[in-house]
């Protein structure tokens, strides 16, 4: 390794979520000002799915967003940003390519596994292989990292980064890296926001199959109602805890995505000059609050501290109600922005 030090001036801003945060930070570097909520909205990142057939550690996956990586894809499509993406078999080749792009003066986004990022708090380090970070410099054996969920930039040793870039599992990170090759100077963010908004509203209200879109919430509710009977008390509690983690902490967006979408609606109201979107934002906030209530009560039950009125049945009722509201919300939103 003969590469010399190279640190690219990079304006890091903390974000609520990794993928949207990386988009916002990378675009700002290339002169396109998009906030994190705008990145979420333009990339149509909000979604809902409960997939009993897809299991991690034997527990079904519930997701509040579209597939990892797709927010970026849709964002690029809607704004005309051209991304260069690479994946690798050979870790050394992957690091060499990273060095080459850094030497061109370009910060690089990449996929990593949280488990192998030593700078993150231990409690969060599970085998979650879809964490996005930006590497913007190299100094000796270390790389400078902008991890969007952190308040400041950090560093990682070359060997550790290599490991994180080549984790196996779901999915294999395969050294995936990406960077904007061309960012259009006068991208029409108005049009992009409108497009992203339409797509989210449409996908949430019309995706077929019971487990996808806002009706997927009712689908989960129906299963949740019978958790205790179907899984037994111990496993039911685990499944419930898993649900909370999917909602609040893992890279699935969760209730946080509902609030971020609310922020996007507020921004859209201004840039699209559609004051009615502010009302939609308010409604989204109310729905987000109910997701939080749900998580709160689920947490009580999980810890076995529940007052008598919190049962799997009552949680299911709550969820069904949220599902109904989201369904109405996205149908009306789809109509309003058609």
């Amino acid at each position, binding site marked *: 390794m003969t590469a010399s030090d190279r640190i690219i001036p990079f304006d890091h801003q*903390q974000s609520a979520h990794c993928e949207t945060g990386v988009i916002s930070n990378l675009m700002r570097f290339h002169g396109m000002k998009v906030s994190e909520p705008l990145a979420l909205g333009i990339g149509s990142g909000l979604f809902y799915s409960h997939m009993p057939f897809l299991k991690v550690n034997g527990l079904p996956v519930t997701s509040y967003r579209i597939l990892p990586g797709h927010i970026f894809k849709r964002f690029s499509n809607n704004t005309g940003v051209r991304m260069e993406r690479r994946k690798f078999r050979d870790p050394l080749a992957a690091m060499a390519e990273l060095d080459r792009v850094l030497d061109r003066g370009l910060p690089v986004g990449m996929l990593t596994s949280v488990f192998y990022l030593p700078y993150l*708090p231990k409690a969060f380090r599970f*085998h979650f292989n879809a964490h996005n970070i930006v590497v913007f410099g190299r100094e000796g054996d270390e790389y400078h990292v902008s991890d969007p969920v952190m308040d400041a930039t950090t560093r990682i040793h070359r060997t550790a980064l290599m490991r994180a870039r080549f984790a*196996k599992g779901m999915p294999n990170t395969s050294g995936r890296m990406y960077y904007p090759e061309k960012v259009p100077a006068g991208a029409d963010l108005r049009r992009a926001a409108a497009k992203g908004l339409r797509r989210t509203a449409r996908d949430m209200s019309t995706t077929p199959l019971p487990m996808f879109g806002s009706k997927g919430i009712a689908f989960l509710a129906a299963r949740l109602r019978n958790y205790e009977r179907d899984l037994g008390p111990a496993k039911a509690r*685990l499944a419930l805890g898993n649900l909370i983690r999917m909602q609040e902490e893992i890279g699935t967006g969760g209730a946080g995505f509902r609030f971020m979408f609310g922020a996007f609606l507020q921004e859209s109201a201004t840039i699209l000059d559609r004051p009615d979107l502010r009302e939609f934002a308010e409604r989204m906030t109310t729905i987000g609050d109910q997701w939080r209530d749900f998580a709160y009560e689920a947490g009580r039950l999980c810890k076995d501290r529940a007052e008598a009125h919190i049962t799997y049945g009552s949680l299911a009722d709550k969820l069904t109600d949220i599902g109904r509201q989201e369904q109405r919300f996205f149908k009306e939103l789809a109509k309003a922005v058609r």
Partner: protein
Amino acid sequence: MKKEEVPQDDARMLEGKFKVVKYAINEKGEYEKVPSVGWEPENVALEQAWDVINERVEQARQDVIAGRSSPLAYHMEKNMMDPALLAQHMGSGARRIRKHLRPKDFARLDEHTLQRYAEVLQVTVDQLKRVPE
């Protein structure tokens, strides 16, 4: 969620390293990013997940001490892996891994394979052959 409702339930999950940010409504009715040190239900769910992992690790350790499993079983659990995931990292089949979880087969492993396991499981070869007392 209003700005002042952003939960601040610290359970040392973030080890004081940083705060996460959440989007919440400020006094002007606009969304903004607000720092948070954690939230009770999230802490409960995290603790629960770690309890399960720690239990599995301890069970594996006991199995090794009792001679039912090779130390590989312990280090595999410690890395939160199952034979399938470990196999992917080793570039071999899960069956082969399961075989090496047996003390007899583990004892017969050559230096090279031990080295590979040690590398994947982030321990030294010496540590790989033992479990903590």
